[in-house]
């Protein structure tokens, strides 16, 4: 992959998975993370953190339904040192039960009905879509897998000798990954016969009524598999036009004209090849939420009907272009995820990321004229209400309605609505 353009080098180690449960995904990440952060027999957790800090080395652990990823970034001049250091951590990790427990707590999902944050809602939904339901979080002992050889390594660096050094590191790891990653494999095999997690959300309304709240989060969400990347990017552009920034329709209408919300917004999160979740949200005075909901609906329907203004759409198009280019060349995890979406089992030699080819070919004029083909119908969205104010009306309840109990994950209602629909 091309080198980053911010003076950093990055390597992403990738281990294949096959749709673990959400609890198992959490345990996997906590296990991997604590293996690094917990130190070794000769290096305390503090000295590891101190060393990484001094050298400007960062690491991140992430997972999808198919992959467990460890991304290491460091200034170019320190990346080889970083690999030396991680080799020691891989081999000599002290597997502290306490560190595992702490990582598990830190990585755990926040209950979004408690925070009212759109990003916490998105996290809960992303987990729901990516992983199979249920499964007990593994006990502290179960994380004690040793590193097997990763299935792929994605390198973003021009530093001389980095491939040789990375290969040397990998060669020191046990080759029989399915035996060495025993815990991982055990989880995988136990679900081997299960169907893929369907990539969809129910429609209807989820309502958490917070009697103490003076505000209401109104959030609409849809998970969609697109025909191709061009379709996905067209939808991305339109959703950005609707709510991505201060130039968006939602900002101009809901904040600047209605004066009803501080931060109305949209999010378009790419979850896999041609898969995305899109959200429209605003936190508003509890008594005003039906009006805000209606205006979001009006904006969406008008945009889907082809009524986007070209000037605004062109601005959003250039912002989207710049944003993706920036992320690709600055954010190693972003690049790795896109690569894995397109090449989940890896590839050798020259390769093409069709996402960026499609990005070059997005035509705002065509997107505007065919908006209805890019955006799903309004009724396909799931409405999530978190806060105070009146309950939704009968019309909103008619497509499915779930009252979310206090301190309860959204999956409670997602399961309930899905069951009702099926």
């Amino acid at each position, binding site marked *: 992959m091309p080198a980053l353009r911010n003076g950093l080098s990055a390597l992403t180690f990738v281990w294949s998975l096959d749709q673990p449960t959400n609890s198992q995904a959490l345990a996997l990440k906590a296990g991997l993370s604590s293996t690094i952060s917990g130190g070794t027999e000769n290096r305390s957790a503090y000295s590891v953190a101190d060393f990484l800090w001094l050298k400007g080395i960062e690491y991140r652990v992430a997972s999808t339904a198919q992959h467990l990823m460890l991304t290491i970034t460091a200034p170019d001049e320190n990346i080889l040192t970083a690999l030396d250091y991680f080799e020691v951590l891989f081999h000599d990790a002290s597997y502290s039960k306490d560190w595992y427990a702490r990582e598990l707590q830190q990585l755990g999902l926040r209950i979004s009905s408690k925070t009212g944050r759109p990003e916490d809602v998105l996290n809960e939904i992303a987990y729901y879509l990516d992983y199979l339901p249920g499964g007990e979080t593994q006990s502290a002992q179960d994380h004690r897998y040793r590193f097997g050889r990763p299935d792929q390594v994605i390198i973003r660096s021009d530093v001389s000798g980095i491939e040789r050094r990375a290969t040397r590191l990998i060669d020191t790891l046990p080759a029989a990954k399915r035996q060495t990653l025993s815990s991982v494999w055990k989880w995988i095999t136990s679900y081997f016969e299960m169907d893929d997690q369907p990539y969809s959300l129910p429609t209807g309304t989820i309502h958490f009524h917070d009697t103490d709240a003076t505000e209401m989060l109104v959030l609409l969400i849809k998970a969609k598999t697109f025909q191709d990347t061009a379709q996905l990017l067209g939808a991305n552009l339109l959703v950005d036009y609707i709510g991505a920034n201060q130039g968006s329709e939602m900002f101009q209408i809901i904040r600047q004209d209605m004066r009803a919300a501080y931060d109305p917004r949209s999010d378009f999160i790419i979850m896999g090849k041609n898969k995305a979740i899109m959200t429209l949200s605003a*936190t508003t*005075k509890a008594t005003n939420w039906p009006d805000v909901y209606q205006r979001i609906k009006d904006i969406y329907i008008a945009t889907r009907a082809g009524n986007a203004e070209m000037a605004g759409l062109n601005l959003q198009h250039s912002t989207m272009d710049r944003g993706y280019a920036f992320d690709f060349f600055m954010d190693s995890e972003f690049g790795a995820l896109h690569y894995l979406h397109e090449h989940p089992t890896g590839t050798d030699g020259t390769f093409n990321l069709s996402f960026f080819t499609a990005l070059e070919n997005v035509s705002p004029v065509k997107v505007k004229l065919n908006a209805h083909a890019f955006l799903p119908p309004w009724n396909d969205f799931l409405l999530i209400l978190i806060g105070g104010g009146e309950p939704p009306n009968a019309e909103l309840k008619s497509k499915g309605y779930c009252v979310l109990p206090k301190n309860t994950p959204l999956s409670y209602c997602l399961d309930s609505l899905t069951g009702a629909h099926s």
Partner: protein
Amino acid sequence: MHVFKFFLSGLFILFGGTLHAQDVIPLTDKGGLHAAYVVPTDVRDRVDVQLIVLSGAHDDPEPSGTAHLTEHLAAFSADATVLRQPRERDIHATIHNVATVYTNSGTPDEVDKLMRLSRAVLDSPKLPDGFAESEIDILHRETLLRERQSSYRWLQRKALQNLYGSLRGRANNTIDDLPKLNLEAAYQFHKEHYVPSNVSLIISGNIAPDDAAELVAKYFKDTVHTAPPPDKPWLAQRPDPALRYVERIQSDRLMHDTVQLVKFVEFEGRTTSVDMQGAFFIATTILQNRLSKALYYDTNQFLKMEIDIYFSKAADLELSIIAELMPGVSLEDAHDTLNTTLAGLLKTPISPQEIKRARHQQIEGAQNVARRASGFLYFLLNVAADGFPPVSPSIFTHTLNATSDQDVIEFMTSIVSPAATSVILAEKAD
């Protein structure tokens, strides 16, 4: 402003890149501005103009939130005046405790527009009928949204109210005061605080010093120095040194049981922080190293910890530690651990090697942070927000190298000495 922030939640995040020395060049033909500087850099195809009003949330009159409302009004007014097409760009205005910052960024060929946008902030806000009034509603939404989203915000406010025994100045009463927000107070705040002599300007990035000087003269030469600058009564706020306030609360808005501690530290015989910057940054690095080692790496009581250290221009310091507890750890035990750790922080004397290492840590950290545009801007702002000249990473390195070990030890000793504290023990309720 001298803020040092440190998070502990498992991962350290730094930035990388090529970096060169940066000069901070004062500009003299600046009209009535408090100060103007250019910091040329050759690493980015961009120019940033930071207009810093040297008043912030601490300067709020009654009601709390007035400075914040003024920030909104001035930002939208400047944007509408200059651009007349507000959809072209996002507005970047931020209120801090001691300053309000308007940042306009663009490519070098946009610098003239960036200067016009900056200059317009000082003009009395002009907004369409009804817009300004309804911006109060937006401020309500923003304040309540942030309050809901971050428990740290309200825990710290409560701790500061108890520490200072006040709802004003260094403490605030933001939520209760929301219904009292009004445009008259905001316009009056603008009139008193958005005056040239209370404003600094920093132009940084890909710009020649002569060009910057010409632009500052062009846009600010007509401004008139107005002395004296606005009063800052909060600088004299001092809690009783014997205060050891502890309040226990319960809330269903917390994710975990949480301890919030705030400590107020005075430095005997000192009245300005301007010559204490080197000692501050090195000593606080040692402080956070020792605290994090004792509280995070050597025990398993705490899940997450955030350490904030604020050093005022009047040479007093607020240390804030907020710690979320691991399940099963009692608030009392955590509080004891925190107290014992703080009291015993200098049991092991600070060695020259530890100071050398902390100095190195700060210099490396500064170099790394400054490689990202937002980090570089914040770096310049950090000290300039107090009205002092901005400090670039290269000047910072020089300052730290010139700081004696004795100064560091004395600084650290003052922080650890008994002083006024306010603690909130917050229990998560279902």
